């Protein structure tokens, strides 16, 4: 079942998954796996860890299916759990230091991107942010969520989210200019 047809069967899909329909739960996973896996990947900077995290998140969803009210709620719930779990993992010793990209971390550049080098650098700079700020940026620029939803997902005041975004953008932009990957004129 592709995501579009699953979307069309939205009211039934969740109900079927709750009743133990394996195909329905698998469809739910496929519908949200790119989002959850990407949150893990951008947060942890490692594909194996991102897959572990995504699997953990979907297993939690499986146990909590009865409390999920709609597919939209499922999406919010998955983003929230994935981001918070990633913050937790980052704060543990095993994941506090992101492995450098050259050490087997393969984050594919989007096929249509204009400047793969710059994209890789932006991803690397994202990895230098503190866990909470990184989660804010991932939810804002990868998941395209608004400030209010990010605040709700991360249990943060809205002003803190805005402050994280502003400071992170300034820091990342400054480092890009400092590394001469981009000029201030190009970004103005």
């Amino acid at each position, binding site marked *: 079942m592709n995501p579009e047809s699953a979307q069309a069967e939205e009211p039934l899909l969740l109900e079927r998954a*709750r*009743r*133990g329909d*394996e195909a329905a*739960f*698998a469809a739910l*996973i*496929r519908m949200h*796996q*790119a*989002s*959850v*896996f*990407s949150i893990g*990947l*951008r947060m942890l900077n490692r*594909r194996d860890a991102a*897959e572990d995290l*995504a*699997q953990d998140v*979907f*297993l939690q969803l*499986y*146990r909590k299916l009865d409390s999920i009210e709609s597919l939209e709620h499922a999406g919010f719930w998955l983003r929230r759990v994935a981001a918070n779990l990633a913050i937790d993992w980052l704060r543990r010793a095993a994941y506090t230091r992101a492995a450098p990209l050259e050490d087997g971390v393969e*984050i*594919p550049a*989007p096929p249509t*991107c*204009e400047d793969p080098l*710059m*994209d*890789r650098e*932006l*991803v690397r700079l*994202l990895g230098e942010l503190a866990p909470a700020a990184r989660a804010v*940026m*991932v939810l804002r*620029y*990868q998941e*395209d969520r608004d400030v209010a939803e990010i605040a709700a997902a991360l249990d943060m005041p809205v002003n803190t989210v805005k402050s994280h975004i502003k400071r992170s*953008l300034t820091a*990342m*932009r400054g480092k*890009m200019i400092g590394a001469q990957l981009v000029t201030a004129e*190009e*970004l*103005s």
Partner: protein
Amino acid sequence: MNEEFENRLRRALRRVDAPEGFAERVMRARPARPAAADLVPLRPVRPTSVSAWRRFSAPAALAASLLVAVFAGQHVATLKAEREQQAGLAASRELMQALRLTSQKLDLAYEAVQRPAPPPAAEEENRS
């Protein structure tokens, strides 16, 4: 100023597909979860009246106890007030009686004082 940079960031942070076979691996890792239809109640369902009685008996008993306590307290207070009132009336009656007796005695004394003394001649005649 940041708009161009934000757009670049959006492009760089585009979602990445999960690895091949990810959903299948999650499905295999799931713990057993019985379907809702297969769920067997662990305890027999109790009749509604019994469960309702169990649910409401304690609050009902408490409410009844409170009512009894309030009425009993009120009754005791009324009896006490009546007793005090009767005692007051009795004391009042006794006081009035005492005042009446005192008044009578004072009247007799006053009459005795006011009565004129008999003449001395009459006294001598009487002696002879």
